[in-house]
C-alpha cells in the first residue's frame, strides 16, 4: 500500500483519545513511538519532549491534544451536561456517537430533539452547548459510579480509507503533524543530524499553553511547527486556501521567520518535494504564535497539512501531503546537520 509508514503512524495516533489537558493515552502512545529515536519525557503541562544530541538544535513541534467535550454535570437521570474543549463544532454533534472517558470508557450518544418537540424558530439551528445532553443509557446512580465532572468525551469515528490515498478520521488535527514528525525521524535514521528537540505539545486547542511552556524548557532557537490547515472544498475557496494533494504548505506570515520559510520552499524545489506557500496576514493560529516569543525569541517556521472538514469526525487528508511534509523537514534538518542551530 502506498505511504504505508505514514498510514500506520496516523491510524495508530488517530485511534487514541487525548482531549486537551488529558492527553495521557495519546501522549504515551506517541512518546513510545518517539523513544525509538531519542530519550523522551513528559513535561509539567504534559507535553512529550524528546532530545537528541547536545546543545540547542532544531525544535520540531506538533500538538498531541484533540478537541472534545468535558463533563460538567452528571444528572440524576443518567444524562450528562457538557462544555466544549477547544473549537468543537456544535453543528456536527447532534446525534453523534461518543466515548465518555470515565473510570472506564463508555459509549454515549448526543441527544437530538424529537420532531414533535422541535420549535419552529429552532429549525435549521444546532442547539447551544448549554442545552446539549449526552445519553449514557444508564440510571443516574450507575452513571455517577463511572462518570464525574471533568471527564473528557471524544466523538467516535472510524479511520476510513477513501479513494486513492486519502483518509478520513477524527483528530487528523493534529495527529497528522505528529505522524509527519515521526515519519521525518524515520527518514533520518542512520543519518547524522544537528541536535533535535521534539515536542508533541499539550493544550494547543485551548490556547497553546503546552507549546509555550514546553519551548521555554528547550534549548534550540529554531522551530519548525507542523499543524493542519484548511483545504479547498465547496464553500472553501481554491484561490484562498490550499488543496488536498498540494504537499507541504509552507507558511509565509509576518510572525514567521521569512528566511527559513523561503529556504524550505527553495529546498522543496531542489529536492522535488511537493510544496506551496500558504500566506497569512498576521498570526497563524497555531503553536507558532506561542513559540516565537519564548525566551529571547525563536526563529519559527510553520508547515501545514491541508485537511477538509476541520474539527469534525470526518477530517479528510491526503497521505502524500504528510509524506511531503516529513520529507521537507528531513531535507532541512539534513542540510543543517553539523550545525548547532
Amino acid at each position, binding site marked *: 500500500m502506498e505511504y504505508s509508514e505514514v498510514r500506520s503512524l496516523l491510524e495508530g495516533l488517530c485511534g487514541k483519545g487525548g482531549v486537551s489537558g488529558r492527553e495521557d493515552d495519546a501522549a504515551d502512545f506517541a512518546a513510545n513511538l518517539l523513544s525509538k529515536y531519542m530519550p523522551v519525557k513528559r513535561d509539567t503541562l504534559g507535553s512529550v519532549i524528546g532530545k537528541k544530541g547536545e546543545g540547542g538544535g532544531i525544535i520540531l513541534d506538533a500538538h498531541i491534544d484533540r478537541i472534545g467535550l468535558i463533563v460538567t454535570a452528571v*444528572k440524576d*437521570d*443518567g*444524562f450528562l451536561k457538557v462544555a466544549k474543549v477547544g*473549537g468543537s*463544532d*456544535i*453543528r*456536527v454533534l*447532534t*446525534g*453523534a*456517537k461518543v466515548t465518555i472517558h470515565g473510570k472506564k470508557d*463508555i*459509549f*454515549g*450518544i448526543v*441527544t*437530538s430533539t*424529537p*420532531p*414533535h*418537540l422541535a420549535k419552529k424558530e429552532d429549525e*435549521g*439551528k*444546532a*442547539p*447551544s452547548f448549554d442545552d446539549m*445532553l449526552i*445519553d*449514557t*443509557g*444508564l*440510571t443516574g446512580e*450507575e452513571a455517577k459510579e463511572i462518570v464525574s465532572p471533568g471527564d473528557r468525551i471524544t466523538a467516535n*469515528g*472510524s479511520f*476510513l*480509507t*477513501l*479513494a*486513492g490515498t*486519502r*483518509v*478520513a478520521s477524527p483528530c487528523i488535527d493534529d495527529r497528522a503533524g505528529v505522524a509527519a514528525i515521526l515519519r521525518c525521524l524515520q527518514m533520518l535514521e542512520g543519518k547524522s543530524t544537528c541536535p533535535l528537540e521534539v515536542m508533541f505539545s499539550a493544550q494547543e486547542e485551548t490556547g497553546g499553553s503546552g507549546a509555550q511552556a514546553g519551548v521555554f524548557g528547550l534549548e534550540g532557537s529554531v522551530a519548525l511547527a507542523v499543524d493542519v490547515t*484548511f483545504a479547498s*472544498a*465547496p*464553500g*472553501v475557496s481554491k484561490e484562498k486556501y490550499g488543496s488536498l*494533494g498540494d504537499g507541504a504548505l509552507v507558511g509565509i506570515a509576518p510572525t514567521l521567520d521569512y528566511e527559513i520559510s523561503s529556504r524550505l520552499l527553495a529546498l522543496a524545489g531542489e529536492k522535488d518535494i511537493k510544496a506551496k506557500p500558504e500566506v497569512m496576514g498576521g498570526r497563524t*493560529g497555531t503553536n507558532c504564535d506561542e513559540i516565537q516569543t519564548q525566551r529571547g525569541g525563536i526563529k519559527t517556521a510553520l508547515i501545514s497539512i491541508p485537511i*477538509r*472538514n*476541520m*474539527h*469534525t*469526525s*470526518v477530517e*479528510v487528508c491526503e497521505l502524500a501531503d504528510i509524506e511531503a511534509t516529513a520529507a521537507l523537514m528531513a531535507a532541512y534538518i539534513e542540510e543543517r546537520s553539523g550545525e548547532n542551530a
Partner: protein
Amino acid sequence: MRETLKMLCSLPGISGRENKVRDYIISQIDGFCDYHTDNLGNLIAFKKGRQSAKNKVLIDAHMDEVGFIVTGVTDDGLLRFANVGGIDTKVFIGRNVAVGEKAVPGVVGIVPVHLTEKEDENKIPVADSLYIDIGAHGRESALTLVSPGDEVCFDGEFTEFGDGFICSKAIDNRAGCAIMIDLIRSGLEYDCFFSFSVQEEVGTRGAAASAFGVAPDYAIVTETTTAADISGVTGEDRVCVCGEGPAVSFMDRSTVYDIDLYRKALETAKQKNIKAQTKTRVAGGNDAGAIHKSRSGVKVLTLSVPTRYLHSPGCVCKYEDIESTRDLVKAMAEELAKC
C-alpha cells in the same frame, strides 16, 4: 433474535433497494413457511399454524430504511445526493456513509466552523449545499467507483450500551423484521400471513400492495416509534418510554386505529403480564395508514418498539422492549385469529 437483529441492521436497504435485506430474511425463514416476493418487492410469507384461523391476520413490518441516493457527481469528484425518507440534516453532517453496491466509504463534509461568520456558528447548512466526499480526485475517478442512482446508507456500528440499550442505524424497522422472523421460526398457534414490506419511508407504498394481495381481516403493524424519554421531557410529551414495552397507538398522522383493537391490546398485555404502554402523542405514521384503507377496509393495530433518535445513524432502543413487542404481537395475532 439479538444476532438476527444485529445482522439485519448492518445490511444496506434504503427504500426501493431492499434486496439485500430481503435475501437475508429469506435465508432465515426458508423451510419454516411458504413465501413469495410480489411485484413491488414485498416478501409475503404464510405460516401454517397448529390450527386454522377463523380470521385472516396479517403481520407487517417494513424492510427499508432512510438514507440517500446519489444524484450527480461534481467536477471535483464530490457526490450530490437527495434524501430518501425524512432525515434531519443535523444528524448526518460529519458522518460516514457507504455508497452503492460496493459500499464505497464516504463522508458528509461541512465548511469548517473557523471559516463561518460568528452569527452562523449554530446554523445548519441546507441539505442542498452538502456533498459526499469519497476521496476521488475528480469526476472521472469518482465515476469509476460510483454512479448517479447509487444508494447511500449510514455507516452505523451496532453497539450495546448502558442499561440494556442498543444503538444502530436502521433499528427502524429491522426490529420489526427481527420480530417477524422470530415468530415465523418459532411456530404459531393459528395460520398467519406476514408482509416484509418495501418503501414505507417514501409513503407506505409497499404495504398498500401487499395488503391488497393478502386481503386480511386484521393487520398488526410491527414498528418502531419515537421515544422522547430524554432528560427534561416529561409526561405525555415523551410519547413512550424505553423499557416500558410496546407502544400501542390509538391514532397517528396516517391512521385512526380501531378502538377495540387498541383496548384489546392493552388488556391482553395485562392478562399475559407483558409490559405495554399507550403511545401518548398523535405523531408519525406507518404502514397502517396504507393497510387500513386496503380493499374494503382492514382493522389495524400498531405495536411499536420505543426508539430514541429515529431516522439517524444512531437509533437507540432497549432490547427487552423488542422481546415484549414480539410477545404482544404474538398474543394479539392469536386473539385476532380466533375472535
